[in-house]
């Protein structure tokens, strides 16, 4: 029997592209790069995009604190872009939106936006609009665990955990301990291929 994706839960039937150890290293490396580029961490704020950008931002903050033990923890916020998106009806029947929680006034701060997967760039466009509604940051940088290509907007990440070239009909899913029970990044094959296999087994 070949289970159909979506039936078995997130990440099932995918090809593993990052193991838990890979994810750990990637987060550590991005944390180092953030420290390097932002010598003075006093006015840095990490803002995770819901859902999985939030635990990633927390991990980055923890890693930064570990390297720079003299300094306090970099503040972490959670951004919901649901009310800024231009693509909901096509994507999901249930638009799930939650409050945005920023730990501090972002005016004049250097904001590092954190997301799990960067693809078309449309979510990031929405996130920039959402952030700027809260104030005028000195700068906004972008950190993503996975960049899978297929950009439709002129958006470029500042920190990338791993570049994973994919076909546009494939899906990249990031699983995190905090939300999914384990750390792993998988590429889910195109749905049509899977259907073909299910068909073949009948």
């Amino acid at each position, binding site marked *: *029997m070949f*289970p159909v994706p979506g*039936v*078995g*839960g*997130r990440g*099932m039937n995918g090809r593993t592209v990052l193991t838990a150890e890979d994810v750990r290293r990637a987060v550590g490396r991005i944390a180092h790069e953030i420290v390097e580029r932002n010598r003075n961490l006093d006015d840095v704020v990490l803002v995770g995009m819901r859902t999985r950008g939030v635990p990633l931002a927390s991990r980055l903050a923890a890693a930064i604190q570990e390297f720079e033990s003299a300094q306090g923890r970099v503040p972490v916020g959670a951004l*919901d872009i*649901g*009310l*800024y998106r231009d693509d*909901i*009806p096509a994507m*999901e*029947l*249930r*638009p*799930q*939106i*939650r*409050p*945005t*929680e920023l730990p501090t006034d972002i005016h004049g701060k250097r904001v590092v936006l954190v997301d799990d997967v960067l693809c078309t760039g449309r979510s990031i466009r929405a996130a920039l*609009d*959402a952030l700027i*509604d*809260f104030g005028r940051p000195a700068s906004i940088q972008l950190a993503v665990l996975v960049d899978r290509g297929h950009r439709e907007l002129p958006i470029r990440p500042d920190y990338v955990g791993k570049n994973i070239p994919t076909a546009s009909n494939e899906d990249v899913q990031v699983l995190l301990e905090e*939300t*999914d*029970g*384990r750390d792993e990044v998988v590429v889910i094959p195109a749905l049509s291929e899977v259907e073909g296999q299910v068909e073949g087994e009948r």
Partner: protein
Amino acid sequence: MSEEPTVAGGAIAALEVQPAWERRHVLDLDDFTRPEIEIVMETTDAMKEVLGREVPRVPALRGKTIVTLFYEASTRTRASFELAAKALGADVINVAASDSSVQKGESLYDTVRTLQAVGAQILVIRHGSSGAPYLVARRVEMNVVNGGDGWHAHPTQGLLDLYTMRSHLGDLRGKRVVIIGDIAHSRVARSNLWGLATLGAEIVVCAPPTLLPYGMRPDGSPPEEPLALPPVIVETDLDRALEGADVVMALRLQLERMASGLLPSLREYARLYQVNEERLARARPGALVMHPGPMNEGVEISSAVARSLQSAIEEQVTNGVAVRMAVLYLLARGKP
């Protein structure tokens, strides 16, 4: 499929299979499921965050046109819908029947067809006749929100009351909610009854027998015909009703009820059914006091109680805008 799905973090997996929002209209709460109410409540949380911002405005419904069509006087409901629509970036057209072509004899159907033709996507309608929004919803492409129809339903008021109760009490299962006053003529009470029943609250209605809905018996005996309302505890004695209450909701007493002979006098009503400090002492300490407004202070509720720390009356108004944002957003973003 023989394979048992192995999913770590069952709670999250459960979240992802929650049913979708497929509702095109919000006409009453009698057909709302618990998950649908949960979706509205959760979305309202996000809308409250937006309303708390320095500039409470998001572009979620930019380019959409929302029409409020009110055949009855209203300040708070109409203003609340207008604020909600504007906070979501929608364009709003307010039509009051008193200064529209309705005065020239245009029918309800022609009026809403015209509003649709000028490009409205969502219609918020208040009408004196029970059922009018249903009639409209069947015959237009727009999403229809009932802003109050006759004695029948006021679903967004029901939702904002549920939201207010939940934000203070959490899960409403088993919570004792007492609704006092003119239940018979109250669309607010009816929508609350349905919502509270779906969320599993213990509902008590308290009113003089003349202000109970037809068929609802004060002695607890079953009605002759099936009642088109969920099961409730009926009390005519306010002190007994308030015993152990978690929520005390007083309804507006419409003064025209006196004229129609349902009540002997305002003074007698106030003496027997006014929520005051002395009576409130029978409820649970810190019980939530609510009123859908506008209040007749000194009639159904004493000024002291209305302004006490237990009163959530102002909060109801604030939550009203957030709940209506949630409803408009969900309708506009739902399946076309």
